């Protein structure tokens, strides 16, 4: 692990009485791809705006390579922000928008032109270089905003939902491009996204924000497989929540069947608790450490795999189990059929009820 490149220390932000950012501390490494996830209003944009210099800090400090940038003007910070609203300059063409930041660096004209053309190529908008922003589609505008921030090759690039308006194909192309540019220019990325899959695929580390505070920070694998709280478990991916009870020697389903687990989170007390298991960790039959019976209420075919909805007494909503297509071919359950689903203790997480 290299030393912290960008250090966010106990940062707080109040908008009069509203606490938008609550005691956030984060160390981000050089050249790291960091993703911020969180529900709407959880403070993601506010945190980025503080890093870029558009919101003062109510408390705490921000350091880059050991020196504080908290009192620096936005134009002096080695940080660029791609705005959630794009904030393109309406009176300038696409090319002029992108060139603007380079002109501010007083680079030679030839270099500016070259870099603008190169980035236009990356975002696949070379043919629209002379258009004004209001002659572009939403997705095209988003790419221009992205290019305008990227072309500066800052030390830290803050992206507020950079790919939200793009279709699936273009989005995955842009994801690859972002990763490539990150390696080529050694940019540290902090990206806000609503798309957890995008965060899992792209990020080196992910932070989940809730009500202005960091709920959990970790690698995509940790976040997905070792959620620290019921909220985090629910927020990332699909999770089944089962009603269980604490017993003298562990946990049990309402009917008394023991539930073995490898992960018990803090704060689980006496009485009711919640057991969580991912749909892809459930399998047909009672071979695992744990199992329960249920009735298939729905089957959703997804091509590669199949989602079974199973009604059981352990949950008020149907439990979702994900089967690969070959399993489903061999013993394809039918709607209304009584089945047994099993899973392993190491895939079981217990949270407070």
């Amino acid at each position: 692990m290299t030393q912290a490149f960008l250090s966010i220390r106990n940062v707080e932000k109040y908008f009069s009485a509203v606490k938008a950012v609550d005691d956030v501390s984060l160390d981000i490494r050089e050249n790291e791809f960091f993703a911020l996830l969180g529900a709407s209003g959880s403070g993601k944009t506010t945190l980025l705006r503080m890093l870029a210099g558009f919101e003062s800090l109510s408390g705490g400090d921000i350091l880059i390579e050991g020196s504080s940038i908290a009192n620096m003007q936005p134009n002096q910070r080695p940080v660029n922000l791609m705005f959630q609203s794009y904030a393109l300059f309406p009176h300038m063409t696409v090319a002029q928008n992108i060139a603007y930041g380079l002109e501010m660096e007083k680079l030679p004209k030839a270099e500016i032109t070259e870099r603008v053309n190169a980035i236009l190529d990356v975002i696949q908008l070379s043919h629209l270089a002379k258009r004004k922003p209001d002659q572009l589609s939403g997705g095209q505008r988003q790419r221009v905003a992205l290019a305008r921030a990227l072309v500066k090759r800052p030390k830290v690039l803050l992206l507020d939902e950079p790919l939200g308006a793009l279709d699936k194909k273009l989005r995955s192309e842009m994801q690859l491009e972002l990763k490539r540019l990150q390696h080529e220019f050694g940019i540290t990325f902090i990206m806000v996204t609503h798309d957890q899959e995008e965060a899992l695929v792209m990020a080196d580390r992910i932070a989940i924000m809730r009500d202005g505070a960091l709920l959990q920070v970790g690698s995509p694998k940790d976040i997905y497989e070792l959620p620290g709280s019921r909220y985090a478990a629910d927020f990332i991916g699909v999770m089944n929540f089962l009603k269980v009870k604490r017993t003298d020697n562990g946990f049990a389903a309402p009917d008394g069947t023991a539930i073995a687990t490898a992960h018990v989170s803090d704060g689980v007390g006496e009485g009711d608790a919640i057991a969580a298991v991912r749909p892809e960790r459930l399998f047909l039959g009672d071979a695992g450490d744990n199992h329960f019976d249920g009735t298939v209420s729905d089957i959703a075919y997804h091509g590669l795999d199949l989602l079974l909805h199973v009604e059981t007494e352990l949950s008020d909503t149907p439990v979702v189990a994900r089967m690969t297509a070959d399993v489903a071919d061999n013993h394809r359950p039918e709607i209304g059929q009584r089945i047994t689903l099993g899973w392993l203790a190491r895939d079981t997480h217990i949270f407070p009820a």
Partner: protein
Amino acid sequence: MTTDRRPLLLMTPALLWLTALMVIPCALILVLAFFRRGIYGGIEYTWTLENLALVFDPLYFRIFLKSAGIAGLSAAIACVLGYAAAYAIAAMPRRRQPTLLFFAVLPFWSNYLVRTYAWIVLLNREGLIVNIARWLGYNGELPSMLYTEQTVIVGLVYNYLPFVILACYAPLSRMNPEVTEASRDLGASAWTTFRRITLPMTVPGIATGFVFVFVLSIGNFVTPALLGGGQFQMIGNLVYAQFLTANDWPFGAALSMVLILVMLGLLMAQAVVAERASNGKGQSDG
């Protein structure tokens, strides 16, 4: 083919009103400008281009140019002051802005003549300013503050400033603050951001304000008459004199016609600027 006639119906009263009070008098002036002046005033109904030629006679054309100069200078000063005021108002918290605008425009709701007379009260030889200077112990010679060209400009700027404030406030308040933030983020100083982002995005407001003040000033005759004290004439005073004292209606009409054409040209140029701006505008917030 059926066309919806309702819009036409709604427009009719306004169109009739304008026809009666604007188009007909203007047409009369247009026609009048091409008749000869009668020997004892009045009009002799024979066609001539003499009146129009006289407008471009150096003697009178100089007044035209001078009026344009005064109107231009007034408009420019009003634009600088008005833009600064509008900028300051737009930078205030949203909920305070309507109040501030109200106060900026307040003088507008009082009578034009009264306001102009108030300046005379302030500036004349025994006026408030002179009295204050004396009271403060200044006994030396004071420059004449009334009946100068500068006083007229001050009066015109004062009168039309609210127009400019309103015209500039509209585009300034509509700007997405994140657009200027983006400029700062990309490395521009506050001044560069103003010069390259804010100013170009709000130029239509300035153009509107400038043209309004210019057009209203170049034809104005009350302010030069009262504050200029008849010391010098603007084109409005000349027109006034032709109609009411010299009794040369055709020449007055010819002067008016040229003035109206100048104004029309400017207003149309302004409309084109505004149109182009609204085409290239569209806040870029997807």
